[in-house]
């Protein structure tokens, strides 16, 4: 059961069941769509900015517990941050879930560190990273569908 709980930590299960920042953001400054065609996970991410600061961010979509919780925790994490700070967080998160060699500063990732276990499940990395790739599409104001597959 220990393996299981490492992946499905209580925080992940909680955010899956009660996702934060869930819902459309009317008249959002920016939005982007994410879709993983192989597994069918979908996501739309909305964002309001004041200057360089993310003042509001929300998402809607459907997917597995890992992808939903990841979107929920990500929106919590980037709210109030500057775009540069959020980009840095993307890099740290990405390196945490994909690269077992690099030393990741789990402290700087805060609650996002609950996804550290994902890197032992290569087939699920794309679930955890879909929201983040969609976030990058928002940064780039991209009209193209983001994907982590």
């Amino acid at each position: 059961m220990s393996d299981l709980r490492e992946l499905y930590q209580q925080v992940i299960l909680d955010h899956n069941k009660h996702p934060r920042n869930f819902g459309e953001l009317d008249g959002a400054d920016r939005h982007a769509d994410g879709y993983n065609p192989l597994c069918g996970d979908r996501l739309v991410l909305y964002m309001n900015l004041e200057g360089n600061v993310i003042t509001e961010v929300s998402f809607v979509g459907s997917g597995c517990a890992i992808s939903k919780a990841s979107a929920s925790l990500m929106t919590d994490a980037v709210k109030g941050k500057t775009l540069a700070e959020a980009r840095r967080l993307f890099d740290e998160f990405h390196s945490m879930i994909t690269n077992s060699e690099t030393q990741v500063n789990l402290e700087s990732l805060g609650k996002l560190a609950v996804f550290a276990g994902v890197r032992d499940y290569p087939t699920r990395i794309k679930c955890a990273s879909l929201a983040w790739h969609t976030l990058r599409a928002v940064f780039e104001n991209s009209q193209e569908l983001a994907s982590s597959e």
Partner: protein
Amino acid sequence: MASPIQDSPPELDVIRIRQDFPILHRTVRDKPLVYLDSAATTQKPKPVLDALAHYYAYQNANIHRGVYVLSAEATAAYDDAREKVQHFVNARSSQEVIFTRNSTESINLVAHSFGRENVGPGDEVLITHMEHHANIVPWQLLCERSGARLRVAPINDQGELLMDEFAQCLNARTKLVAIVHLSNSLGTINPVSEVIQLAHQQDVPVLIDGSQAAYHMPIDVQALGCDFYVFTGHKLYGPTGIGVLYGCERLLDSMPPFLGGGDMIRSVTFDKTTYADLPAKFEAGTPHIAGAVGLGAAVDYITEVGFDKISNHEAQLLEYGTAVLSEIPGLQLIGTARNKASILSFVLKGVHPHDIGTIVDMEGVSIRTGHHCTQPLMDRFGIPATARASIAMYNTRQEIDQLVHALHRVREVFPL
């Protein structure tokens, strides 16, 4: 009058069968492997593995035209495999058996070669709502090329084809019916004989996608009367990369080649090329010789075990699996047709299928999760995906119990 004992179907010795499959004796995450994804690909018995190794170790040469012993032996092995497949599906002649890469290529071959000559603007190709993408997309591409229209016969909530509606979809513009024999997502066994009869009343040829059916039940293309029947080796306990297109000789003869190249010609000049006779006309380039040999060994293996025993064993496991899965709180089976094979597709309330797949994998149980290449079917049921346990001749009751145990683990993590 026969006694009840004589009437009961023959029992499969599953313990003995399992000894033939080396992979079934490995562990996954320190637990015995429980392989319940045979609808995606079946495991391979030792005779198939041996046939592949033996071919490469002792007979490997390119087939046809070689005047030396090795080439003659390789050619004989390849031809022999074709005859085995011919008998396996009861084709009239081995010329009606075309080797391809897989079912997908077989269907594309028909879509191109039959489609080019027979399907034009305003014509229709009729499929059903439960088709695999492999039996949808080639027809969509054909329709785009030719200006024809793709029509889709509907199904009911149990996952059964609605025969009245199907009959209504058939008309003077229909140029081909393409239908799955056994649904990979639902387990539904379609009434293909009836479908063929209805279509033939209007002179419409029928292609049957037998990818799933071929390892669950005996196939007799003459009894069915189908015009094309396609299946793939790797779901038939054989190697990947080898597939079959059965086509009735009259149609195959009338069709232009699919791929051009070596082996499919009679003579080539820069002005004019004439094509080889069947089956070579449709087999351009060096084929997967070892794959065909392996498929021949697989067909021998299945024949030796016997479909009477295989079907009986799988039917018992389907009945047992249906009963025990139905007891799991919040579990709903997707695909409850009256005539059904050993595929158990399901959703679990409050849990996404991918989370189910990961958690049962931790218990050593391999099942498939996703849309199973049937997205329109998932849309029909209003779900993004299912979890699917599919059962083959080597599975046991204990393995179904292991799945149930693993699903209870899922419920512990995701309580209702």
